[in-house]
């Protein structure tokens, strides 16, 4: 079964083998409001953990998306160009942003599991 981890910047990463699929959480999409555009990274781009790799534009504001781990982008969610609202409807489903090959799986240990993220959200009030 795939493992899902969370960052304090409200990104999630679903790990299947060496591949991670990355998106933003339910909490993040609620905070952003209606998403109207997502600027996703191109396949082949090498990204570092914590690097700004995507931008999500809501009606209200633009927000940077940071890669929760290092790796090489293998696929971006092309469907978001036509239906950015998928991020609001299914942030952890069809609203995913991009997939990457994870360079160093030990970086995953620094992320939160679901229970840890839930506790983190509570701490935000």
């Amino acid at each position, binding site marked *: 079964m795939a493992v899902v981890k969370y960052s304090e910047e409200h990104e999630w990463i679903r790990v299947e083998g060496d591949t991670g699929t990355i998106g933003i959480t339910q909490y993040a999409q609620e905070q952003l*409001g*209606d998403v*109207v*555009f997502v600027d996703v990274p191109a396949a082949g781009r090498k990204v570092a953990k914590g690097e700004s790799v995507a931008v999500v*534009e809501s*009606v209200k*504001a633009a927000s940077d998306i940071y890669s929760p781990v290092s790796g090489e982008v293998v696929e971006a969610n092309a469907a978001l160009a036509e239906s950015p609202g998928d991020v609001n409807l299914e942030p952890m489903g069809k609203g995913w942003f991009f997939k990457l090959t994870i360079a160093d799986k030990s970086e995953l240990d620094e992320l939160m599991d679901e229970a840890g993220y839930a506790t983190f959200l509570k701490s935000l009030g």
Partner: protein
Amino acid sequence: MTAPSDGPLKRTPLYELHRELGARIVPFAGYEMPVQFPTGILVEHAQTRNACGLFDVSHMGQVRLTARPGHSTAAALETLVPGDIAGLQPGQQRYTQFTNENGGILDDLMVTSTGDHLQLVVNAACKDADLAHIQTRLSDACEIEPMFARGLLALQGPQAVTVLSRLAPSVAAMKFMTGAFVVIDGARCYVTRSGYTGCDGYEISTPADAADPIARKLLSYPEVKSIGLGARDSLRLEAGLCLYGHDIDTATTPVEAGLLWSIGKERRAQGSRAGGFPGAAVIQKQIAESAPRRRVGLLPEGKAIAREGAEIAIAGKIVGTVTSGGFAPTLGRAIAMGYVERSQSANGTQVELIVRGKPVPAEIVPMPFVKHAYYRG
């Protein structure tokens, strides 16, 4: 002037209603205001354009001016604004600006003559400063009554006339930029056919304790939904209307801002009441020779959104700055407005908007982006 006043956040008479409706509340101009309701900004925006939206704008400042014996409120107010106020007939409303000695804009406001008084509606973030300004300059000629506790509801959209007519049939015949005293749900209100969305609609000034019941009454009609500040901003941007503190401020003149239409002929050079307002010399000179820069509409290519602060360039040279930008739900694309050097400001000029370091091609276009739908009779 745009900084919220210090101290605890204030609440409008509709605060409890907003909470009941599940609003996301944010601090705005010193008030706890609803930025959006659970359906979100896109739905609220479409609701207003297609049917009817109810906005709480009670945070804005309402001020009443009454002439002291031997004085005229219009003549007094004309010493602070470039608008033709003396020419206002009873029941007429006009948009104008408080200017400073450099011709910059201290605030923009609506002025309505009731016959006996002038009623002003000013921006929330500026209202304390505006009141002090008026008190300093106009106290000899006018009694100045801040009515900051009153409610102000904006009912906007093509169905607004149908809805408000049910409660007050006389409002159907009102024309854009006129006002009248109207009894709504037993309360004496002052209604103007105006707003800041580009839609037909009304602004309803209510006694403080009548704001909540009138709002609930309006929301009981199926055409009406409550709308937050988020959609208010996207609606006014589509309508090409200036947001104070962003598109206009103390460093922009009404001429640069494309608000020359709001300066009546009588107040311009050679007019019968020419000048006499702060910064008149600067503004008259700009009217005669045109301003060094101009507010323009911008239509970026593609999906990227150029927001406030993005630079405007031509062939790598910076020619201006975006002052408002966002997604236009009615058009399904990004729009923006900003200031560019006059020599580069013609419609059709190709420019680049620098979004996160990357140039986005854009064209200078006329505004509004979405046609105004005002009722002019």
